[in-house]
């Protein structure tokens, strides 16, 4: 039953993407074609795409490891929950807003350079170029990596830490033998996700890249579809992007197989290795560094936003409409995303459980896993344009726009929701599946008494992830943009495009606050009840 539903969902996703591609391919433009696909230009941007994405991923992960570890070891300092929330924020930020926030800190007139020039440095340090791209990508992805790693470390059974303490394992030994194996197991998934996000980065790469030498394949896709209106070329470039990145991720997966999920005892976790003076100092330094890197651009956004005429801004009908549109789209796409992710993870598990059937179920499960992540590589603009063509015969396309935008947003959030839900669902199933089956608890009762209480927290996290992502999204909406479907980021861009920078700053602040509210929702219940008294 569930397998059928999962297969249906998988088929739906593949069909959604495939139909869009087919529709675009069928669109014969009559244009002479923009020359051969794999010319020197495409080769160059492909190389750059892979280079910057690899470096970005590497740096984001390198930074995330000590941050995740510090958060795991220092489990009860005041404000810890706010650090977690801060780490969830960048996801919901439109790229343009992030770029300008980052400039306030790292730019030629930014905080860093003002400090440096006060210290006597004459020429400002310029980040435009690869370094700017890397800073922006670390800002976006280090927090994501740290949170996913933290979740992994927190799934380690509580007894391990007691055993480590009892055996007298040093901080380094604990990392090497206990934490690192867990992190290493998570790396293919995390690195893959970040690599895809960086490879498809567009606005950040162009704005901070310093020149067209810094272009990604995504730029060429956009160019092919928008300026040249050459859909077959856009499809070919998308295929190139999917194939190259996909191959790279497969290699990654081959070298670092997925982790064996430990069964946790559900016991409250307490660490004994973060109490020493040196560990505590190191953890503090990393946490302060993380808060600075992630928090300062937000502080800058908040500061600029607070100078806007917020009262007027929030009382404008245009704002109300945009808020309602954004909220509805985000809510519905997050619901769909979470539902599909949960269904597909369950199907994946069921398919893999039938060992005797051999290759077919494994292939099926693999396809499900791949489709939930590779979807990120399909540019939303391609999906949007494809569906525009498909829906054209059925009347005014603008009428279908909300549904298409919701679908695209739901799909784009899928990889994130999958990363959040899959381990939690595996642990939950290991804990309850047999018991529930033996007691004959099924259907609604199982959901109400067993699944919902056990999975409520990760479901909320996934949901808030998906909502934040979709709230900050511009890509899917832009193509369909009509007076009736103005979202908050769209409104922000349009203010920005009409010299109204103060309004745009105000809207950026509001968007940031909305994301904060969502992360508060998502991290509700993250505060652990103290196991004993705090020391």
């Amino acid at each position, binding site marked *: 039953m569930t397998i059928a539903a999962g297969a249906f969902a998988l088929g739906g996703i593949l069909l959604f993407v495939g139909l869009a591609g087919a529709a675009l391919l069928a669109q014969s433009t009559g244009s002479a074609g923009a020359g051969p696909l794999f010319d020197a230009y495409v080769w160059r941007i492909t190389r750059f795409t892979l280079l910057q994405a690899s470096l970005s991923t590497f740096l984001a992960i390198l930074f995330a490891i000590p941050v995740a570890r510090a958060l795991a070891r220092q489990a009860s300092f005041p404000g810890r929950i706010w650090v977690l929330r801060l780490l969830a924020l960048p996801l919901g930020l439109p790229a343009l807003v992030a770029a*300008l926030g980052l400039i306030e800190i790292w730019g030629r007139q930014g905080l860093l350079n003002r400090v440096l020039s006060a210290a006597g440095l004459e020429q400002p340090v310029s980040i435009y170029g690869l370094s700017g791209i890397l800073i922006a990508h670390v800002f976006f992805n280090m927090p994501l990596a740290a949170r996913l790693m933290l979740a992994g470390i927190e799934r380690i059974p509580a007894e391990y830490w007691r055993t480590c303490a009892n055996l007298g394992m040093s901080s380094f030994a604990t990392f090497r033998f206990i934490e690192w194996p867990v992190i290493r197991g998570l790396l293919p998934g995390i690195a893959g996700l970040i690599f895809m996000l960086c490879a498809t980065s567009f606005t950040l790469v162009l704005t901070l890249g310093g020149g067209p030498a810094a272009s990604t394949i995504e730029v060429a896709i956009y160019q092919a*579809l928008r300026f040249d209106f050459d859909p077959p070329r856009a499809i070919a470039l998308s295929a190139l992007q999917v194939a190259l990145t996909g191959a790279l991720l497969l290699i990654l997966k081959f070298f670092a197989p997925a982790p064996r999920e430990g069964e946790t005892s559900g016991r409250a976790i307490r660490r004994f290795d973060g109490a020493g003076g040196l560990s505590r100092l190191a953890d503090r330094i990393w946490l302060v560094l993380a808060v600075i890197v992630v928090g300062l651009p937000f502080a800058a956004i908040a500061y600029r936003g607070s100078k806007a005429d917020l009262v007027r801004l929030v009382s404008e009908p245009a704002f109300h409409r945009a808020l309602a549109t954004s909220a509805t789209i985000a809510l519905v796409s997050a619901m769909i995303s979470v*539902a599909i992710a949960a269904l597909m993870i369950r199907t994946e598990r069921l398919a893999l459980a039938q060992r005797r059937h051999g290759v077919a179920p494994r292939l099926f499960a693999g396809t499900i896993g791949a489709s939930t992540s590779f979807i990120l590589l399909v540019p939303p603009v391609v999906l949007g344009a494809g569906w525009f063509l498909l829906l054209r015969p059925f009347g005014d396309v603008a009428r279908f726009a*909300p*549904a298409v935008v919701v679908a695209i947003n739901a799909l784009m959030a899928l990889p994130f929701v999958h990363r959040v839900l899959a381990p939690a669902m595996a642990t939950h199933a290991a804990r309850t599946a047999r018991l529930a089956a033996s007691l004959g608890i099924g259907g609604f009762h199982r959901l109400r008494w067993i699944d919902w209480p056990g999975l409520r927290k990760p479901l909320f996290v996934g949901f808030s992830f998906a909502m934040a992502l979709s709230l900050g999204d511009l890509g899917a909406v832009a193509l369909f943009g009509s007076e009736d479907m103005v979202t908050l980021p769209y409104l922000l861009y349009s203010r920005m495009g009409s010299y109204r*920078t103060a309004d745009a700053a105000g809207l950026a602040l509001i968007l940031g606050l909305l994301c904060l509210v969502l992360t508060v929702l998502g991290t509700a219940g993250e505060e652990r009840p103290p196991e004993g008294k705090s020391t």
Partner: protein
Amino acid sequence: MSSSLHRKVLGRLAIAAASIAAFSVSAAAAEKTLTVYTYESFITEWGPGAKVAEAFEKTCDCKVDYVGVADGVELLTRLKLEGQGSKADIVLGLDTNLVAEAKATGFFAPHGADTASVKVPGGFSDDTFIPYDYGHFAVVYDTEALKDPPKSLKELVEGDPSQKIVIEDPRTSTPGLGLLLWVKSVYGDSAGEAWAKLKDRVLTVTPGWSEAYGLFTKGEAPMVLSYTTSPAYHMVAENTERYQAAPFAEGHYIQIEVAALTKNAKDPELARNFLTFMIGPEFQSIIPTTNWMMPVTATKEPLPEAFSKLVDPQKTFLIPSEEVAASRKAWIDEWLAAMSRN
């Protein structure tokens, strides 16, 4: 997850989806409607859209419906995607660079209007597209950061590389393409070398005007590629003369915004009336302080004082649309090669 819950969830989703679909269903249409496709900033609260609609509706006993997309380029993409099924009666907001491509789609019908009153620098006349406003591209600079702005494109190209400029990408934006054509007009076959020199002065190349102007107003660079009319906004709306356009001795490249009626306009007569209205004093008087572009015919009252302070280019460049369409790819390649060189 159990399948019974699934059905429930899906049911609820369907209802939710239906309710958002309801957003997009436009309000009850009046007897006669004129559907105008335009770019988004035309129809924002502060844009000309609402005033234009109000004024035109008084003359026609009809209702003006706008559909706004991101920008002029998106407008053409949208039309190509919609094909013959488009409900557009009027398309307003393409620029002259797109005219040849737009004509090639075969969606547009000759206007048949008298455009004798239309005056744009350099002159532009077409049987299908009618200009409604124009602006010149210009390097806008921050007077507080730059005391000695370049006086020509040559000075910009050869000037002090530590004085940076932010430009837009010709692959993704109209102003970016504008600068590309401007350099081409001035330098011709040696445009590549000019770009290679200018490269050191370019702080970064942004995907669109918004990012570039945002960086500029944050003080990241003292210069940005924008329009001669940009200072007017700061003078009128913000009461500051801090940001000024630099007049260039060689002349400036022009951007002319045009409109046309489509072949499948529901009421061609109404659409033609709109085009005539568009070059009349009512419409033209709305444009300067809402769209921040120059009018193409006489306005009812003189332009605000700020406009008299704007740069008035002595020479205007405009490469014919057909030539742009034919050579754009080669020119962009030339730009890419020069700008990517180390």
